[in-house]
């Protein structure tokens, strides 16, 4: 557990000229720097994707609005979805995994540092390729630039007959390239966790964050590969005369849907499981208790991973499957609710009997619990396939998955930012700005996404650039747009907090939250080599053992 520093001449970079520093960032293979690169690049794309969302919301503010043309609107929702999933959510979670997993298992780096750097730059290149389409592509109806076929690019809309030019190709290549990056990172995370744990860290003693990232990485391997295969098939269709998805030549549109959702549904869990991981670290620390039911949490995670591989066609209830297929996917989808519910109960069980401290990371965690509960319940509604025949492809679905992605994933990410920022930078994020950020975002979120369920129930389909007056959708859409701007304001407060606190935040020691996992045993920010001496652990909470030698966890495990 020793954390005495080693003096390495090159480790002190502050005094070097900025060109050298930049070069060090670009050529780095250090898992912490790559983690930060992932996170910062994802924040840039978050800003871009957020602006796209605001353009969508302004256009839909009232019926028959003319803020943007239909072509631009279609590009906006395509780019917003693609950006947020592939170039914000995945990279930012990979960033945290990169940064935290080696620290939490007492390792000095990832298993394959250069693969790690290669994966990051592939994923970043993917994002650049996607946005280069604004200059290099052309789309439906000769629409200048970016892809406008939706983030699913359903066949045959993505075929050359309907999507001429190159905008769809940039979309395909962006996903293909970043997909290889994701696969590289997944292999790296798995190898790191399996091979580089410090002495004493049995697999049953790993922090839940590490466990869940292991499961996430396994799912990435299974989920991303069919997507990459489908993208290659699409390229063959478009340029080599293939007919996989070419319905005019006997190809199958439904085949594409299967490929896409065999990726697409596990992808949801690829994104949410690392957020479960944040919750499973943060809630115990701010409740001052160990996680309730550690083995059950692990089992539930693995169970979700398996069951979520068999639910993909619930995205396809409207494509005219027979009653047996509809029933099967209804059952599997509802079944996922069981292990997910167990997790929620275990987090409440962790808080039960604790001493809950309402610091900003905990506020966002509570927001996560509340919203994820609702998102899960609306998920159950859509699992009932007949109900989904009404709800699917409507604004209800849009509200549901934003409840998962914003209300769940983004809230968990904010919790993670406030919790680990002091470790990464050595300075605390401002609690005052943090509370402003939390309450503004909470109000904006609920204004937007609570209300958004209702137009779906009233028959408003998604992906329409305008709608008819007199359907009862106008006022609701106006409220949704107001909420979106409040969320944007909250994000500005957050970004300001990140920047201001980097220069002016209170300097803290190794362990501001009185936490229990290994990353808090070393200095903030951690030295390049992480641990001067590789630590040895005897329980799931090594720092608890250190702080409470009279009553260590190791006695009970």
């Amino acid at each position: 557990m020793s954390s005495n520093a080693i003096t390495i001449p090159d480790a002190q970079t502050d005094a070097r000229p900025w060109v050298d520093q930049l070069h060090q960032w670009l050529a780095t293979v250090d898992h912490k720097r790559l983690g930060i690169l992932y996170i910062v690049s994802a924040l840039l794309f978050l800003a871009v994707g957020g602006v796209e969302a605001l353009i969508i919301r302004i256009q839909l503010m009232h019926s028959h609005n003319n803020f943007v043309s239909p072509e631009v609107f279609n590009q906006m929702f395509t780019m917003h979805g693609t950006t947020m999933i592939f170039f914000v959510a995945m990279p930012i979670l990979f960033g945290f995994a990169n940064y935290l997993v080696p620290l939490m298992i007492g390792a000095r780096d990832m298993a394959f540092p250069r693969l790690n750097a290669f994966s990051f730059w592939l994923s970043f290149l993917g994002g650049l390729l996607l946005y280069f389409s604004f200059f290099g592509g052309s789309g439906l109806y000769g629409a200048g630039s970016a892809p406008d076929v939706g983030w699913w690019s359903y066949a045959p809309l993505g075929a050359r007959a309907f999507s001429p030019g190159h905008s769809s190709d940039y979309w395909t290549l962006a996903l293909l390239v970043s997909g290889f990056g994701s696969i590289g990172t997944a292999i790296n995370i798995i190898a790191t966790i399996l091979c580089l744990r410090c002495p004493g860290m049995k697999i049953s003693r790993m922090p839940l964050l590490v466990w869940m990232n292991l499961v996430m990485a396994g799912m990435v391997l299974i989920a991303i590969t069919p997507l990459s295969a489908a993208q290659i098939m699409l390229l063959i269709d478009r340029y080599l005369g293939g007919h996989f998805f070419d319905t005019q030549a006997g190809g199958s549109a439904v085949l594409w849907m299967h490929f896409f959702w065999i990726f697409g549904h596990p992808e949801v869990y690829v994104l949410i499981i690392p957020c479960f991981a944040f919750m499973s670290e943060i809630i115990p620390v701010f409740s001052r208790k160990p996680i309730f039911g550690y083995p059950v949490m692990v089992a539930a995670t693995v169970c979700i991973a398996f069951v979520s591989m068999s639910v993909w066609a619930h995205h396809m209830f409207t494509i005219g499957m027979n009653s047996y297929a509809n029933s099967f996917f209804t059952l599997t989808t509802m079944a996922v609710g069981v292990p997910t519910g167990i997790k929620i109960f275990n987090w409440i069980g962790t808080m039960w009997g604790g001493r809950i401290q309402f610091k900003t990371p905990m506020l966002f965690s509570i927001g996560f619990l509340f919203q994820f509960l609702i998102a899960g319940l609306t998920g159950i509604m859509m699992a009932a396939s007949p109900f989904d025949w009404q709800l699917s492809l409507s604004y209800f679905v849009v509200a549901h998955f934003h409840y998962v992605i914003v209300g769940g994933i983004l809230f968990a990410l904010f919790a993670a930012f406030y919790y680990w920022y002091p470790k990464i930078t050595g300075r605390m994020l401002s609690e005052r700005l943090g509370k402003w950020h939390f309450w503004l975002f909470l109000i904006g979120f609920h204004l937007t996404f609570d209300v958004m369920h209702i137009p779906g129930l009233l028959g408003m389909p998604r992906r329409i650039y305008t709608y008819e007056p007199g359907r009862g959708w106008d006022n609701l859409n106006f409220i949704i747009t107001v909420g979106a701007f409040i969320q944007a304001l909250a994000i500005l407060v957050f970004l300001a907090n990140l920047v201001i606190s980097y220069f002016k935040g209170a300097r803290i020691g190794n362990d501001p939250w009185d936490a229990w996992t290994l990353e808090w045993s070393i200095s903030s920010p951690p030295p390049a080599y992480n641990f001067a001496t590789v630590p040895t652990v005897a329980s799931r909470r090594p720092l608890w053992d250190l702080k409470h030698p009279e009553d260590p966890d190791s006695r009970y495990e």
Partner: protein
Amino acid sequence: MSARRTRSVLSRYWQIVLPPFWSTSALWAVGTHGTPNNGTNIFSPASTPAKSIADLSILVLVITGIIFVVVFALLFYSLVKFRMRAIDAGREPAQVYGSTQIELAWTIIPILIVVVLFLATARVIHAVDDAPEPAAALDVIAIGHQYWWEFRYPKLGIVTANELHVPVSNPDHPTPTFLQLLSADTDHSFWVPELAGKTDLIPNHPNRMWMDPQRTGVFLGQCAQYCGTQHAKMLLRVSVDGSEDFAAWVRAQQRPAVEGGGAIAGRRAFERNACINCHAVAGTPADGRFGPDLTHLMSRATIAAGAAENTHQNLRLWIQNPSAIKPGSLMPAMKLSDADLDAVVSYMETLH
């Protein structure tokens, strides 16, 4: 029995809760021909598939609502009860690691709930998906095109577009309508919320859906699956007619277009230009199939798949410059001279 009563009470409850949102659409509707007198509210079903879905959704909403209340109460209670107080400073609470009994309880209870929900759902899936087609059913082929709907009545020899006419169905002598769903290009989805759940129209993948509307009127809907630039204005209306009205409509549609004397110049212009490459008018050389059949254009309340009302002004604007109404529509601006334009519009207005 009592369960059924609870459900109908609840469905009335929904109709009380939701009116602020849908009454706006119901208020201005007066029920004249071609004017919609129904909204697009999934909780206001007028046909068996939509009704069984609405009933199921009430059940699902009640169960999920109870789960929400219970879990939220637990969460809220633990937040209030176990918040850090000043007196606790510096002391750690009892370190509890878990409990097998509690874990078992919150595993088994959700499993039981899933079983109940699944069985209730499977019943509705079977009832809607596997409904047999009675002999009295009306067959319609619906074909999705980029941004409009083609409706063909194979047994009646009728072809029309965008406004589907079906007979009202008496529960004692049901005359449901069975739609075969096809697509000419990309994926579309047929969604008229008050009549049935949506089903996609997918090229090379024929689908089927049915409805048995129990009340007359015009029901609104639109394409629900993103199909390209003008997905938003691929609107849809279903006119549910009383049996005599429907029979009269069928007879009118089966007649060739009535052509007035003053439209000869317009007809010539129509046939001389490229219009007939895409449009058909029965009984004339115009037999294109790429665009909507115009034989009885004037019997329709809207043009451009519901994007505009079928008025003289709109028709003229549409033929002159389709992008003014529906940018991205596949109908080209034909650049007709003003004289030709007026003549073609006059010709269209004779197609009753």
